[in-house]
């Protein structure tokens, strides 16, 4: 995108076009002939990875918007309909949700790379500032996207974040009302967030074009931080950089697919599987992991306005980085002190992220203040002082010299692994949030559907359904399921006739008929499972004030913290069965006499695993209560396990398809990455 193109078309059609619209020349000079420093390492592939992620988010987002309904009473269910009924809807949704996290992982790597190698220094200041603007836009887009599923975390995240603006004196409340379009977060808020969430990615794409433009004017920085001088210092973008980038993207896709197909809920919050309820705030409001460091800064400052200012300041300070660090040497490779402080800064960010997921109390607040200080000190004290006093090491004469001198591939690999591990720590930080409260976790059961090859046990799901029908369904609805689901592949797989018979047993309200009356008719397989109560008020009145929750998503909406370092191992072992473990334990967790000193309210029961231990539901299952025809023992532990499996299927009916496709995709991507690696090596062999 800089200077006149050297592109000389041979084909007459291309010549004709080039004389009128030099687009082929633009592409040629920007992405083919464009000289890139020959010493770029793999950290430089994250720019391409980010472009790929932006494209993935836009494409999956447009598709999801075709099925999503931005209306408070329908939004939550419409997302579930996407996941359950739309062809490949579960895949598209997982891609988009995990894609947001991947986008942020990649952008953090990209930013830290810029920080380490001094890519923000003259003449690349504008390039850097455009990058910070993209990052801010990403934060806004990610936040509004998280609101759209309209779960508990969506709603309360929206409430908390918009309330940040109320900190501004005089105008704060008016700003917040303006953002909401009402007196609380509600339908107008959801509508505008949807509209803006659709718009902002295209704004990002526009700024990305400017970012790339600026990049192509100044040229890329490189690990040595010296500008290319002769032709020997550079290689043409295609095929050298392109192949390296494509290989990097392919490896990143392997990482991304791990989350899409095997750990879709690892990065999310179980509370977001509970529909938004403006009357109940979840025990811990935790933002998405990528905001945690800033959330920690916000909370560490005891003054509302100053907290908000510090939080925004933590991002805005990046805009001034080119002038805060005036050292002429770019790369930290040649700045021994700056290098140490850089890693200290990385550690500070990770620790702030960890603190952001912790309750704001006791030692965490103190630590939060210490690391908030460290964060700002890095930019406002360390870098300005270092740039004046630091003794830098001698720079290589040219990039070509640098290439000849190095051979430390192993070191770079080790560093990548360390960084990925560190990211894992932050990612999982959210799940430790509640660790302080519970001394013990429900025991882990063996589930047939666990692990990469997991499948539901059909007979078990059928038994679980029997328990649901005979026991649970007296109080609990299953509103997201239809009778037809019982006969669909990957579930209990009743025959179609069995499903029809089950449906016909229910009397479904229909109408109005020609006379304008509602009437009852036998259920059809397209009908939704009949709810035991006509509405929530009736459910509440019949159950001593506590409405029995809908069970469709129970197995995904209940979780417990796994603690450090267990949650990191969980990422590798694909542990996702907190929900079924909890349900299984809860059903068996009743104790006739509460422990000494526990004050049990009237009409409640003591349950070891229920949060707070006092539950309104009487023990629902006893040995021998439900008759099994297949000789399975009719015991409480067996019942608990069967019904927990059934509820897992109810919450995730396409689990088997997800894992099956995941295996295929993984094998494919690993083969592709291998081929790309060797191709890249062959091509680069010419350049050395």
């Amino acid at each position, binding site marked *: 995108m800089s200077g006149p193109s050297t592109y000389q078309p041979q084909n007459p059609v291309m010549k004709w076009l080039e004389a009128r619209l030099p687009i082929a020349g633009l592409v040629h000079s920007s992405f083919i002939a464009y000289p890139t420093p020959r010493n770029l390492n793999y950290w430089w592939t994250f720019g391409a990875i980010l472009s790929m992620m932006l494209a993935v988010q836009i*494409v999956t987002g447009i*598709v999801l918007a*075709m*099925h999503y309904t931005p209306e408070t009473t329908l939004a939550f269910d419409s997302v579930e*309909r996407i996941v*359950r*009924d*739309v*062809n*490949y*809807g579960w*895949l*598209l949704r997982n891609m988009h949700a995990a894609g947001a996290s991947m986008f942020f992982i990649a952008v953090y790597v990209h930013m830290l790379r810029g920080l380490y190698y001094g890519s923000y220094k003259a003449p690349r200041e504008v390039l850097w500032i455009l990058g910070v603007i993209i990052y801010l836009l990403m934060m806004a887009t990610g936040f509004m996207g998280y609101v759209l599923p309209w779960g508990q975390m969506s709603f309360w995240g929206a409430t908390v974040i918009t309330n940040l603006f109320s900190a501004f004196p005089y105008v704060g409340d008016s700003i917040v009302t303006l953002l909401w379009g009402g007196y609380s977060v509600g339908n107008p808020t959801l509508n505008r967030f949807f509209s803006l969430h659709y718009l902002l990615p295209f704004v990002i794409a526009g700024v990305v074009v400017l970012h790339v433009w600026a990049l192509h004017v100044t040229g890329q920085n490189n690990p040595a931080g010296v500008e290319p001088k002769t032709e020997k210092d550079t*290689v*043409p973008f*295609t*095929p050298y950089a392109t192949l390296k980038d*494509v290989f990097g993207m392919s490896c990143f896709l392997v990482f991304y697919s791990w989350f899409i197909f095997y750990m879709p809920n690892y990065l999310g919050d179980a509370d977001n599987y509970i529909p938004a309820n403006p009357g109940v705030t979840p025990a811990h409001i935790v933002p998405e992991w990528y905001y945690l460091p800033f959330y920690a800064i916000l909370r560490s400052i005891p003054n509302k306005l100053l907290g908000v200012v510090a939080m925004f300041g933590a991002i805005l300070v990046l805009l001034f980085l080119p002038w805060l660090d005036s050292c002429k040497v770019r790369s930290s490779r040649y700045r021994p002190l700056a290098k140490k402080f850089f890693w200290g800064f990385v550690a500070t960010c990770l620790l702030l992220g960890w603190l952001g997921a912790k309750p704001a109390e006791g030692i965490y607040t103190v630590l939060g203040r210490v690391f908030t200080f460290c964060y700002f000190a890095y930019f406002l004290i360390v870098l300005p002082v270092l740039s004046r006093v630091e003794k830098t090491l001698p720079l290589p004469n040219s990039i070509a010299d640098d290439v000849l001198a190095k051979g430390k591939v192993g070191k770079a690999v080790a560093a990548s692994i360390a960084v990925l591990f560190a990211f894992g720590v932050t990612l999982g930080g959210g799940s430790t949030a509640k660790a302080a409260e519970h001394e013990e976790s429900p025991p882990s059961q063996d589930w047939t559907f666990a692990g990469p090859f997991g499948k539901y046990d059909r007979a078990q799901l059928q038994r679980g359904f029997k328990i649901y029908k005979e026991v649970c369904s007296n109080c609990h609805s299953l509103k997201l399921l*239809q009778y*037809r689901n019982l006969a*669909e592949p990957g579930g209990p797989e009743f025959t179609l006739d069995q499903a029809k018979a089950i449906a016909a047993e229910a009397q479904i309200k229909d109408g109005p008929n*020609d006379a304008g009356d509602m009437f009852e008719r036998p259920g*059809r*397989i*397209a009908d939704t499972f009949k709810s035991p109560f006509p509405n929530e008020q009736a459910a509440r009145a019949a159950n001593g004030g506590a409405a029995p929750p809908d069970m469709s998503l129970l197995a995904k909406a209940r979780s417990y913290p796994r603690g450090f370092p267990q949650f990191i191992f969980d990422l590798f072992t694909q542990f996702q069965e907190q929900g079924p473990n909890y349900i299984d334990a809860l059903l068996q967790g009743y104790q006739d006499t509460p422990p000494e000193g526990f004050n049990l309210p009237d009409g409640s029961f003591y349950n070891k695993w229920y949060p707070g231990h006092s539950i309104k539901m009487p023990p629902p299952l006893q040995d021998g209560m439900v008759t099994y025809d297949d000789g399975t023992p009719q015991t409480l532990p067996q019942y608990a396990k069967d019904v927990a499996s059934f509820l897992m299927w109810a919450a995730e009916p396409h689990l088997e398809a997800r894992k099956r496709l995941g295996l295929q995709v993984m094998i*494919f*991507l690993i*083969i*592709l990455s291998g*081929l*790309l690696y*060797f*191709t890249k090596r*062959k*091509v680069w062999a*010419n*350049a050395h």
Partner: protein
Amino acid sequence: MKGLGIVTTQSSAEPTRRDFLYIATGAVAAVGAAAAVWPFVSQMNPDASTIAAGAPIEVDLTPIAQGQDIKVFWRGKPIYIMNRTPKQVEEAVKTPLSDLKDPETDQARTKAGHENWLVVTGICTHLGCIPIAHEGNYDGFFCPCHGSQYDSSGRIRQGPAPLNLPVPPYQFVSDSKIQIG
């Protein structure tokens, strides 16, 4: 360093190992890209709940007097159920096939023993407008969009539409009740 490095050099007459690697990589990548497109296309098709909701419906015929018709919806499409007068039936049966653009007998379009009942999908075969019943020159249907005329058996007689109004799958469950679908 000129060129793409991916094209075969002229000097090597036989494919080399390097060429094979490039072709294999390109082919695998292309297959992957093509496969990745499929979910994005497939999601446009009707989802599982839409398909399930297209289950058969039952319609009670008792309220429809002779010479009247009702419109019901099945799979989102309007279905005309018309209780034809003897005159309408006679006209439909007597029309010679040679007069028809899309030749089909009235018997083939109704159920034996229930000849007075005409059940047709009320969507003009021209461009999808809904024809109006009991209008036009043939005592059948008239499409206001571009003037297609259908007779009392729903057969195209005049205008731009090429085909008869289709008869949806249906059967009589009793003398006064049909199941569509």
